[in-house]
């Protein structure tokens, strides 16, 4: 799990382990941090929007070195847009994940809650879903299928 300087901690990782929100929050909390916004995605066992269906589990895979490079890039984009963000954690869990399991975490800390932490975390998950090379196959009662992404990054993005 690469971690940058203690000044402005950035944690980014692809992991097969359970996401530990407590530990990740501690890693990105500075003595001057007073607020954190965290986003987590969980495996839905039941989906109602769009094509309603059930899910037995999701099977995640990543192009690991590129995924970590792109997570680092997402963190840099966050810092450019919200300079008051102090710590950033971006972690994607891979492997076979069952309903209710957290699959991804984006967390940002700052001195105060009104300086963009919520927006930064939202941006982080939106960008992760655009440019971080991770894919999931959905396994349901009627078979399995890869989930299709729809974003085409520009060269160099």
């Amino acid at each position: 799990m690469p971690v940058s300087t203690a000044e402005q901690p950035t944690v980014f990782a692809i992991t097969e382990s359970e996401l530990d929100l407590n530990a990740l929050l501690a890693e990105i909390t500075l003595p001057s941090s007073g607020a954190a916004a965290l986003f987590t995605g969980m495996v839905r066992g039941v989906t109602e929007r769009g094509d309603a269906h059930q899910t037995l589990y999701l099977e995640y895979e990543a192009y690991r070195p590129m995924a970590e490079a792109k997570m680092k890039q997402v963190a840099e984009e966050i810092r450019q847009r919200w300079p008051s963000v102090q710590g950033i954690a971006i972690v994607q869990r891979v492997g076979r994940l069952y309903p209710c399991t957290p699959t991804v975490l984006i967390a940002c800390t700052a001195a105060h809650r009104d300086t963009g932490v919520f927006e930064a975390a939202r941006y982080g998950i939106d960008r992760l879903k655009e440019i971080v090379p991770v894919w999931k196959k959905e396994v349901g009662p009627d078979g399995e299928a890869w989930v299709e992404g729809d974003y085409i990054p520009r060269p160099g993005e």
Partner: protein
Amino acid sequence: MKRVKVLLFATLRDYVGAASVEVEIPPQATIRDLEEHLIATYPRLGIVRNSMMAAVNHEFVADEQIIPDGAEVAFFPPVSGG
């Protein structure tokens, strides 16, 4: 000709039946050339021709990009993580 190792992910890996393949390409071959070569060799890839994405050394690249020597090349569908 030069040898390049191509990493494949998700649907593309399923269609090729391997997580990576080694191919011989001309020295000035572009990503598009490599893609056409792969589709010719593994016709099922034609299904996803319009959504195949390419990365060279962990960066998204254009189809016109010439493949550098010793590059890590990967093809994959649009990402669906989170």
